[in-house]
């Protein structure tokens, strides 16, 4: 089943934990903002995305269907 990475940017504080866990998907740039590099990263990265969801200190990341 395909999925989509969703970030609540009202909650995100750019701690960059997600970038450490899944650099293929998340990048905090020098402007201190988080950018989603790939909204539909596919099953191969699902485990990493799930870990990023769990490790986010602001619980700002979620995964939606499709």
């Amino acid at each position, binding site marked *: 089943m395909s999925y989509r990475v969703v970030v609540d940017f009202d909650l995100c504080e*750019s*701690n*960059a934990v997600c970038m*450490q866990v899944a650099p293929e998907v998340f990048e*905090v740039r020098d402007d201190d903002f988080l950018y989603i590099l790939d909204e539909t990263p596919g099953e191969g990265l699902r485990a990493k995305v799930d870990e990023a969801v769990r490790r986010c200190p602001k*619980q700002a990341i979620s995964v939606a269907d499709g």
Partner: protein
Amino acid sequence: MKSVIVVGASLAGMRAAESLRREGFDGAITVVGDETDAPYDRPPLSKQVLAGEWATERIALYDAASLADLRLTWRLGARAVSFEAASRTVTLADGERLAADGVVIATGARPRTLRGAEGLAGVYTLRTLADSLAVRAEFDAGPQRVVVVGAGFIGAEVAATARGRGLDVTMVEMAETPLERVLGAEMGRVCAEVHADHGVDLRTGVGVESITGAGRAEQVVLSDGARLEADVVVVGVGVVPNTDWLASSGLEIDDGVVCDETCLAAPGVVAAGDVARWPNRLFGESMRVEHWDNAVEQGMAAARRLLAAGGATEPFAPVPWFWSDQYDRKIQLAGRSGPDDEVVVVTGSLEERRFAAIYGRAGRIVAVLGFNRPRHVMQYRRLIASGATWDEALEFARSQS
């Protein structure tokens, strides 16, 4: 393994319970917690909750549906008072005895208090939701003067939040420079300057002699003789791990529950979070870590260890990391910094209070400190995790500039 008891219903314990389910454990999980509130997240207690910006519902760790999915049996408002490791039996304050095949110890830590101030109203520590709401109510009442004892990270966040609410703040710190034992004197001075920038009256190199008042705190008397008028006093002078209930458990206790490098404390007994001490292979030292991220990671690792039983296990060897939000600064530290380390600023400048600095010791990079530099902190954290040498870290820094 058919049953597990998780003692401690905060972040580490809950992440352990969640991981057990995710790894396919289908047996009974009982969660014991001494607070009555449903599991909640603590970092906002010194920030958004204290500031009055967030309703308490926002700090719930789980919504009702995901909590129900975990199929947990609860013992909330129930304090564990003793434990026998050999039979994995937990005794609660009301006398109830629970036994299981596996036990996760995640009882966290409690704040140190100031001796002699226990009976006085208006003196607080900050650890629980109840603490935060009590201090918030004091702030709402509009006190004239807030005195924060201890310029560590909790004290610093309380000071920042109080200043954000327009309150007068005096912060008292025993060390000559805040956080110097953790960050070294130079970086500690930067932390001190940030407080001064925001109008905090920071008194360093002085201790608290006593807090006086008729039933309620009125004055904080310092070791240099100064007397600070105080309406509210918040004490943030560190925490002690909650191991009293384990005194006769058969477990080794030494500033925490002593575990092996896989978080195992005894057969079928693991520990995680603020209460756990374990040898971290990456740094070659025994450590106990009081950070949010460690509670998450170690909770998950401890759960996996429990299910692995005699099977393959991997050592738990993370690079500890935390953040502290103060004023408009996000301070992050990854690794194990010390006062005698070599410190090099690799990006930004101390003057603009936006920089990353790396710490080197014995030929290795051991830590990275960031002020509003989350990207760099995570880059160097990965470098530390890879076991990079100090020269490699400096080379990486040059390649980035």
